[in-house]
């Protein structure tokens, strides 16, 4: 089994000869089987498995919620599950509209809700014994690149050519502006990756270092902080920053 650090598959391929310090501690991404695509060596890793499980949970939840909503009787009070779904949707809608404004906010509710659900489930999937998919730099970079495309699509849509000329407004500062624009997806992705990765690493080390009977109860308290609290904060922050960056381009200059 190959054990590499989070920068799969590049580092994974480079490190395939080295062994991890301990056999039981698997900190990095494990590749389960190798396949070739367009001449590239790729691995089916545990990130893929965790993502598939997270997607399965989300799809099942969506299908069940859809069926419950379709069969709901408008004359009766909604049940517990329907109330919960309504609470989720309403709070996401309220957050999006209060951040992005009455005019543009409703268009982004769907995406922000999906993003929040995916990142939150991905961060808390450590509770299920999985390796969180967001502890893989490939996942967080993809999410941040979606945000990057959204920022500039909306910039060109609402400011037309002013989106480009705005970078050169004080001509002296134009390099800083351009670097600042390019640094946005990098800092977004590294923030999520670093937080989840450090939590995963600390939990793995604790499970490996402590005696077996102690690991039955003690790390549970730490799961509450590293998985639930930190995961919720980071998914909130990712969605919030996406909204702030995208809505920064709405004002007509």
């Amino acid at each position, binding site marked *: 089994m190959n054990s590499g650090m989070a920068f799969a598959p590049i580092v994974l391929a480079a490190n395939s000869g080295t062994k991890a310090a301990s056999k039981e501690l698997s900190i990095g991404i494990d590749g389960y089987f190798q396949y070739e695509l367009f001449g590239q060596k790729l691995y089916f890793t545990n990130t893929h498995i965790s993502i598939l499980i997270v997607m399965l949970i989300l799809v099942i939840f969506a299908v069940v919620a859809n069926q419950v909503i379709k069969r709901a009787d408008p004359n009766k009070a909604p049940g517990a599950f329907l109330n919960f779904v309504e609470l989720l949707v309403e709070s996401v809608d309220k957050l999006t509209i209060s951040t992005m404004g009455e005019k543009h906010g409703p268009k982004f509710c769907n995406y922000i809700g999906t993003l929040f659900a995916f990142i939150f489930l991905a961060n808390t999937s450590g509770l299920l014994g999985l390796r969180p998919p967001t502890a893989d730099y490939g996942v967080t970079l993809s999410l941040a690149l979606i945000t990057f495309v959204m920022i500039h699509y909306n910039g060109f849509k609402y400011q037309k050519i002013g989106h480009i000329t705005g970078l050169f407004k004080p001509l002296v500062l134009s390099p800083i502006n351009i670097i600042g624009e390019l640094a946005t997806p990098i800092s977004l992705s590294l923030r999520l990756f670093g937080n989840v990765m450090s939590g995963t690493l600390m939990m793995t080390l604790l499970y490996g270092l402590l005696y077996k009977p102690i690991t039955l109860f003690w790390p549970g308290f730490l799961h509450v902080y590293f998985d639930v609290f930190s995961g919720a*904060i980071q998914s909130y922050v990712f969605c919030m920053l996406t909204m702030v960056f995208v809505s920064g381009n709405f004002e007509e200059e």
Partner: protein
Amino acid sequence: MGNITNEGLVLAFSALGAGVAMIAGVGPGIGQGIAAGQGAAAVGRNPGARGTIMSTMLLGQAVAETTGLYGLLIAFLLLYANPLIGKLPQ
């Protein structure tokens, strides 16, 4: 002290470098503390705006945390995916 291998030297200084890189954790600690303190003061002055203050404070703290995370990433790289070992003359 004469029998230190090249690889051992690189590994030792990588471990040292990982420790030094984590000094970057000082800045975000101070910054997050200042943000939390100002947030508490703001809630004390205007308890009605608690929700807005909380979300703004968390957002600012997350942004301040980024520089510390860069140091953490350097430490991770040095410990688990060391790029320097590959540069040794074979």
